[in-house]
């Protein structure tokens, strides 16, 4: 069964009329992970934000987006807000900037969970503590009482994963979640994403331009170039026999990076693939 189905998604700039994503159609099956790959400016983030309906007001979109059979494009803003977080959870690129810099991290967690579930303070603390421990965050209470600038990017990324665990969404959208991290931290965060998939029943869209990471986590992948999908299929097939010239280019340059990554990680990622 498809968790999320996107058909004929078109995104354009209403001022200039320039089409940024001409027409995208894809779907994500329940419990599977779809990677969207492409260089920056290829429309990956636009596509993710279009699913969340969070693109800037000047960017308009058309097409159908079905989440568990419900057409998101037809929902009112209020109904859409209820879907965000609870059913459609997004994890953004830069953990260091994802939380209000003037508040301790716990404020965001409490606001979000109290809003969706109406839980009390203590309830939230207990549930978040458990989730944060499960993503290998030590001393969750101290983290919840810390300001974002006192924590590292990897820690904040895992706080976002922990929040997703508590929210139990149908689809998790991770928009380049590892780009802002160094290689070692990247490895730890990817491990948590893999566990998130196995532990929960959710589908995942994983946006990245790092093929080594994609190879480890995704079942299927889309390759985007200049807003259009140029190749799609099972990750394994694309890595072994890419059809499109651009994909072949990405794979060949990506694999040299992959080799470097494996050397650092002592060949772990390759062995598990």
């Amino acid at each position: 069964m498809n968790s999320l189905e996107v058909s004929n998604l078109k995104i354009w700039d209403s001022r200039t009329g320039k089409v940024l994503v001409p027409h995208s159609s894809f779907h994500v099956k329940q419990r599977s992970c779809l990677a969207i790959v492409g260089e920056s400016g290829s429309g990956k983030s636009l596509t993710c934000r279009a699913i969340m309906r969070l693109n800037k007001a000047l960017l308009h979109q058309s097409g159908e987006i079905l989440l568990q059979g419900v057409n998101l494009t037809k929902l009112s803003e209020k109904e859409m807000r209820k879907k965000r977080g609870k059913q459609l959870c997004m994890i953004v690129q830069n953990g260091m900037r994802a939380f209000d810099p003037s508040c301790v991290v716990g404020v965001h967690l409490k606001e979000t969970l109290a809003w969706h579930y109406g839980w009390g303070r203590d309830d939230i603390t207990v549930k978040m503590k458990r989730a944060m421990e499960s993503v290998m965050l030590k001393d969750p209470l101290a983290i919840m009482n810390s300001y974002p600038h006192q924590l590292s990017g990897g820690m904040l990324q895992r706080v976002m994963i922990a929040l997703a665990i508590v929210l139990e969404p149908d689809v998790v959208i991770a928009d380049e979640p590892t780009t802002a991290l160094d290689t070692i931290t990247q490895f730890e965060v990817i491990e948590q994403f893999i566990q998130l998939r196995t532990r929960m029943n959710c589908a995942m869209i994983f946006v990245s331009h790092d093929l080594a990471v994609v190879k480890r986590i995704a079942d299927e992948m889309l390759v985007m170039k200049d807003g259009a999908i140029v190749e799609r299929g099972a990750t394994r097939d694309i890595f072994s026999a890419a059809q499109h010239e651009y994909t072949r280019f990405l794979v060949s340059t990506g694999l040299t990076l992959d080799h470097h990554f494996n050397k650092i990680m002592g060949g772990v990622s390759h062995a598990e693939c």
Partner: protein
Amino acid sequence: MAMGRYIIKRVLISLPLLVTISFFSFILNQLSPLDPAEVILHAQGVPNITSELIAETKARLGMDQPLLTRYVQWFVSCLQLDFGNSYVTGKPVWSLLGPAFLNTLKLTLVSVIAIIALSITLGTICALREGKWVDKSVRGIFFLLTSMPSYWLAALIVWYFSVKLDLLPTSGMDTYQSYILPVTVITISFAGIYFRIIRSSMLSNLNEDYVLYGRACGLPESKITLHLLRNSLQVAISVFGMAIPVILGSTVVVENLFVWPGLGTLSVKSILSRDFPIIQAYVLVLAAAFVIFNTFSDIVNAALNPKLRKDH
């Protein structure tokens, strides 16, 4: 804990600053080409000013002593709110300056509250409706209003509200209604600039990832706006903090137009009659107000922004 330490540190830093300022405001008057003794004798209407009379007056006022001794004496008595006597009327300076300062402070504080309320409201509305007609018309109207000189604007609204409609008093500070017109004039000229600071600060914050993540987590816009305001206000608070002493020192025009018995009226009168002790005290009080409100806005900023509280 960090907050308490920050407040103590910030207050301690401002103390030497206050002493330095007092020294400069004392020196400033010594630089005047006019001899104070001569001015006093003129003010007292002495017909024939001889050099013996000047020397005698100097000795009586202790002006023949070294500069530093006089400064220390002056500074110590200033701490007890004793700024000496007016050359012109002979009354203690504080009995003239105190009530005038209080009147101007009242006008300033009411104006600042109005300025803050108006700037935050307009700044928020314009930022959240960027490029829409509300944003454009508010910016256009306030561009027009702030471009008007305050004396002209004051004359216009006095003519309309007091003379034509007979709703509000034209001058004085007898009732609460007396505040409305002068506060309006001050508010319009300042809020027109400050709401733009809040608007642009909010617009740059709107592009931050925490706004996107907050929305992606399904938080309502009201909650997100509060987070936005908290972060956008940090720029504005320093400006608001400085607005208080700036208005205290710049009410001359408004006070004269509305016959407000405040600092502006008193200072102009003193400058014209070369009443040095009052001018000296006026400069000192205003400079101290700058230091105090600057310290205050730094502390409020630190309360909003955890990064500022960090120990270095």
